[in-house]
């Protein structure tokens, strides 16, 4: 398709998506109301209405909504492509994802049968009342979770990725110049260092950054004041695209919550709060097996973390509501995964009684609650916290646990990490390869959790600033390689995987931005 047709296809897609949305109705209502305004004349009605909408900030809201859709559009959208192609263009990856999903379903089903607990049931009235009273302190509840185990852990998923093969790829075993020493053996396109330098150009040494203590190029306190001033202006303008560009250099702590909300186009309208209340009602009414999985996960991960244990109650609220939110099903259009299906009891095979389980189609795994935990530092109102988390999940986090060829997908990130390491630290990679301490086995858990729980929270938030700013997860692959580069000397001395793990066990003292800058811009190519 030529450029013109591609653009018009995108425009048509976005209009189709936005028509019928809340924003559409609001703007229509606003346009009708503005007819009473003196500046709107009958002779120049169309122009006047447009002008009015422009001045009252609605054009900006529309721009932000369009920008949000553009960020989500993943393919060039050739209309002849079938829906499964939009989910994932490569056939063998679709097949691998389908068989991985089948394993998860079997695992969940066997847990159900072993424990004789239904996947979902309606709560009796007294139980509903009890839950309502304890809504804000679900952490004090100590249900018996000993029989529950996570459906899968990141390392199980890693094994699946290691075994991923393209049947059309010549995987001959002779070592050659293009041999890949790492675990991922699929030939996806990943950026090399010069492409990364261009992509992350705002991280280069000539730009001021938040997250470094001093800079030889730009005096840090002058930069911080100026940057904060620009940040306030961006927020006053309410422009998502500008905010996304701005946050590439980091966000001042006091502006971060609002900036992330603006970039993700998350509003705090009464409708959003009402929707959240609706979700809490459905949590109270129906009891799901995945609720116990979430409880267990929070108890195992966030509750044991020095930074996040205080947010335990928030985490339960957000995660339980998340699993009942059917708007999350939208993201399966561009996610290679498919939501699990089931039938209302006694109606197996009858399509009118087919439902998705859980209602949002996402089955949690060990460590899932760590996606929410860092956000608790930014938002203390559950509806806003929930909306921001949901938007971040639908834009980024889902890519970390599904098999896809997307450049921000976990497969590409792993390959990116291994390629960077092999190209720029070949001695280290070879040494680790020889002692059977494949670097990916250590770095995988960092990347799947987007470093949550491994970095100090202020550093983590600086990293997530850049994820939002560049609309890509590739930075976490670069960071993983940068961490290895930083600890290279110690790693060259180790002689086993366990010792390598020990060297890289504690990342809490690392400063993320200087590490990234050194790796990207100070590595000799």
């Amino acid at each position, binding site marked *: 398709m030529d450029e013109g*047709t591609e653009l018009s296809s995108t425009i*048509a897609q976005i209009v189709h998506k936005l028509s019928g949305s809340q924003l559409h109705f609001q703007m229509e209502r606003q346009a009708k109301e503005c007819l009473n305004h003196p500046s709107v004349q009958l002779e120049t009605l169309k122009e006047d209405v447009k002008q009015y909408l422009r001045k009252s900030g609605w054009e900006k809201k529309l721009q932000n909504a369009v920008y949000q859709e553009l960020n989500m559009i993943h393919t060039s959208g050739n209309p002849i*492509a079938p829906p499964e192609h939009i989910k994932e263009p490569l056939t063998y990856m679709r097949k691998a994802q389908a068989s991985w999903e089948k394993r998860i379903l079997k695992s969940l089903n066997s847990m159900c049968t072993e424990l004789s607990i239904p996947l979902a049931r*309606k709560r009796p009235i007294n139980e509903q009342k009890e839950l309502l009273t304890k809504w804000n302190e679900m952490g004090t509840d100590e249900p018996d979770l000993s029989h529950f185990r996570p459906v899968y852990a990141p390392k199980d998923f890693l094994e699946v990725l290691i075994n991923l093969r393209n049947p*059309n*790829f010549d995987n001959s075993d002779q070592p050659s110049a293009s041999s890949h020493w790492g675990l991922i053996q699929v030939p996806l396109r990943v950026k090399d260092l010069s492409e990364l330098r261009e992509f992350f150009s705002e991280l280069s040494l000539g730009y001021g950054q938040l997250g470094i203590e001093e800079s030889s190029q730009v005096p840090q306190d002058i930069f911080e004041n100026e940057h904060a001033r620009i940040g306030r202006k961006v927020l006053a303008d309410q422009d998502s695209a500008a905010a996304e560009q701005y946050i590439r250099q980091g966000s001042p702590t006091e502006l971060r919550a609002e900036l992330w909300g603006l970039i993700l186009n998350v509003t705090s309208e009464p409708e959003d709060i009402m929707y959240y209340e609706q979700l809490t009602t459905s949590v109270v009414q*129906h009891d799901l097996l995945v609720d116990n999985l979430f409880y267990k996960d929070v108890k195992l991960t966030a509750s044991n973390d020095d930074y996040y244990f205080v947010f335990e109650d928030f985490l339960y609220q957000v995660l339980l509501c998340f699993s009942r939110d059917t708007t999350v099903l939208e993201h399966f259009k561009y996610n290679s995964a498919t939501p699990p299906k*089931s039938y*209302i009891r006694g109606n197996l095979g009858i399509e009118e*009684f087919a439902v998705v389980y859980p209602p949002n189609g996402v089955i949690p795994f060990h460590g899932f609650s760590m996606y929410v935990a860092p956000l608790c530092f930014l938002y203390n109102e559950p509806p806003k916290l929930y909306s921001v988390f949901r938007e971040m999940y639908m834009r980024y986090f889902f890519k970390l646990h599904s098999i896809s060829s997307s450049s921000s997908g976990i497969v590409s990130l792993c390959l990116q990490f291994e390629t960077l390491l092999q190209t720029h630290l070949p001695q280290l990679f070879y040494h680790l390869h020889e002692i059977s301490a494949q670097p990916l086995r250590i770095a995988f858990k960092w990347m799947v959790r987007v470093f949550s729980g491994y970095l100090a929270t202020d550093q983590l938030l600086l990293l997530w600033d850049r994820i939002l700013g560049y609309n890509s997860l590739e930075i976490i692959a670069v960071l993983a390689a940068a961490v290895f580069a930083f600890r290279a000397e110690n790693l060259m001395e180790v002689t086993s995987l366990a010792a390598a793990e020990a060297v890289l066990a504690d990342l809490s003292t690392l400063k993320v931005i200087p590490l990234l800058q050194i790796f990207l811009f100070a590595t000799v190519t």
Partner: protein
Amino acid sequence: MDLIPGSSSMYDNMVACSVKAPVSLQIGNMVTDTANPGVLVIDVTSPECTSFNLQEISFKNNYTAFLMVRLHKQDPNSPGNAKWVTCLRNYQLMPCPHTEEGAQDYFSISRQQMLIEPDNITAVRLILRQPSSVWLNFGLEEVRISETGKDDSEKTLPSWISSLTPVGQAPKCQNAVPDPDKISSSIQQMWALTEVMQSSKTTARVGRFDVDGCYDINLLSYT
């Protein structure tokens, strides 16, 4: 070659061509040589060699890196004479021939992208190149040729499309945005396509996950 059951205007003007099997071009004895061929040729001929005006070629890629298209064009004045002309030269399907990007994507090549006017065509020759040795096979799938049709004015378009104001008043970014007139003309076609292709259900979700208040589930289903 069978036509897709017409649910979309895309396939209304399909020409029932026969797509021949790909022939590989390589030097040496094709039977005993073990090297993979890097060039394949696919011939697509119209039935009974009737000539048609080409609108679009669409296909699904299968690890082909570069495509060249040649057309067997008849001279309208002297029907006996026909010659091969190149209409698309070195069209890149895969940004990097060694990696997967673009390897299984769908492509459409319209007549506006071609070097010559593709009228009075009797055959299309697709020359595929894959210089990388890492792939075992390559080719194209689902090759479809459509011809220029009559004007499809029966489709109802939303009123906002017909009155698109030109972008001329907005600040012009040099070279960044394609010609707005061209866009507004092709947007009508695209709108019709996406209307048919995408599901017609409203994008606003209702939010109910249960069936009549009941959400009692025992086990997950595998199908």
